[in-house]
């Protein structure tokens, strides 16, 4: 499989260098894979930070900026960043009002963030943590490590970041983040596996007439392999699963994301969006905003996910608040 890379072991380092080259408003903390705002942490705001394995671009550093994240830590491809990098990020972004860590629910991420937070707390930083587990494909049961955190995380970044920009305190920012977590669900599908730079081959094999439902964002195999479907069938399958899990119904208001996994053209995402809108209209569910694009990807995977988040006035105000980051800009 061909890629536009140099040495695979330099993948993350060179990607981050390119990113800060393109966005002078971002900079790397020296000797780390942590990206923060060049103009320093806002001293009058809670810092919302995130991080995780690489390969999900524009997640995570793409959301660093005014009104969203104060910092983002990048691990190796699909591998949680290490605790000391996370501790460094927390220490560096704290402007005195505390730090909220937005963590996706993977054991590696949770363990490393836990340790990182402990280390920063020893240095006197106030830290809280919110764990996002929006993937409805996997039942939360004794037999799993809980549900995974996927694309809904971006909405947590947006709302928590906007709340922080309002000047709210750490408890309030954390409350808003939890509120999004409680109201968001996502389900994904893969048409092809991704190819990691180090392995250079598909993580799983799919035949020409197969798709994989319930995939995560790390090229993990999904929960069910099935025959190919039309775009409308895919939209229905993903949307049904999410609506069912959230119990959203007629008269409620939502924000949706039709998210590409990295190798799917935007045109196909719009074709899916068409059906998602048609379905939500038919069910009497009000769509406050519909995001379409590559928000949380899995390298070059062809596929998509559908996210639905139940919103109220507080959340819509936060979602509509201005932000300026490489991957998301909302004008005043």
């Amino acid at each position, binding site marked *: 499989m061909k890629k536009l890379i140099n040495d695979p*072991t330099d993948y993350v380092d060179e990607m981050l260098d390119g990113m800060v080259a393109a966005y002078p408003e971002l900079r790397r903390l020296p000797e780390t894979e942590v990206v923060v705002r060049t103009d320093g942490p806002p001293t009058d705001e809670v810092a919302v930070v995130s991080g995780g*394995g690489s390969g999900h671009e524009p997640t995570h550093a793409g959301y660093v900026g005014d009104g969203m994240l104060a910092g983002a830590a990048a*691990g*190796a*491809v*699909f*591998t*949680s*960043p*290490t*605790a*000391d*990098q996370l501790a460094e990020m927390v220490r560096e972004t704290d402007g005195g009002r505390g730090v909220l860590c937005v963590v996706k629910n*993977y*054991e*590696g991420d949770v*363990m*490393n963030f836990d*340790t990182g937070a402990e280390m920063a707390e020893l240095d006197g930083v106030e830290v809280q943590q919110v764990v996002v587990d929006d993937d409805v*494909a*996997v039942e939360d049961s*004794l*037999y*799993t*490590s809980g549900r*995974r955190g996927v694309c809904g995380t971006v909405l947590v970044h947006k709302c928590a970041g906007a709340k922080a920009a309002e000047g709210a305190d750490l408890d309030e920012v954390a409350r808003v983040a939890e509120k999004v977590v409680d109201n968001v669900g996502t389900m994904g599908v893969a048409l092809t596996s991704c190819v*990691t730079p*180090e*392995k250079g081959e598909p*993580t*799983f094999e799919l035949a020409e007439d197969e798709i994989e439902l319930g995939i*995560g964002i*790390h*090229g*993990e*195999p999904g*929960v069910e392999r099935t025959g190919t479907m039309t775009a409308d069938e895919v939209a229905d399958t993903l949307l049904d699963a999410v609506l069912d899990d959230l119990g959203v119904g007629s008269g409620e208001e939502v924000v949706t994301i039709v998210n590409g996994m990295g190798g799917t053209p935007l045109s196909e995402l719009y074709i899916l969006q068409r059906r998602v809108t048609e379905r939500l209209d038919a069910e009497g569910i009000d769509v406050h905003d519909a995001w379409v694009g590559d928000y949380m990807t899995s390298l070059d995977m062809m596929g998509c996910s559908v996210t639905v988040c139940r919103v109220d006035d507080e959340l819509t105000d936060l979602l509509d608040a201005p932000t300026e980051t490489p991957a998301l800009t909302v004008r005043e």
Partner: protein
Amino acid sequence: MSGEDTEALLDALDRIDARLHDEQAYLTDLDSRVGDADHGNNLARGISAVTEKRDDLAEMELDEAVKTVGTTLVSEVGGAAGPLYGGSIMSASQTLDGGLDAESALAFAEAYREKLTERGGARPGDKTMVDAVTPAVHTFQRAIEEDDLPPIDALAKAVDAARRGVAYTVPLRASKGRASYLGLRAVGHRDPGATSTLFILEELLATATD
């Protein structure tokens, strides 16, 4: 150079370094079946960072050197394997402050097992590295404490037990780690972390018998 024990540690690390690089693609491939295709790369990156510190390690007492191995893994590996391997080694290194003998080896093994299960919350049968570690540690204890075997023979038995632990992960579904998302589809594949644990134990044994 800070003594025989540290020298043995360096020998072991060199062997483990070679082995994990040899098995890097294999471990990653195992992880691609039930996880996210990075376990071999994660460990290879980690052990390389450790052996880069070879000269520093050579100057240290055994417990300090082992602790440094642990912290290096924690700060280089990331993912689940980083805190599990690195954190458990770090924590267990205290047992070696008097150097290496049958007793401290036993204490190290038990401390490692305890920290690992505490940190990851996995129990035997959850299809994780715990399935290699637990039988290995129990077997090692029994061989030394009850059967009075010399440490090398005890270690050989522990490696055998770990090998059976790895085999045991094959028919299981997973309850921890990324493989847990696969449900019944994880059945039929060996766990990558249990497998890498076995490889490391095999190299420890080879160092000891050399």
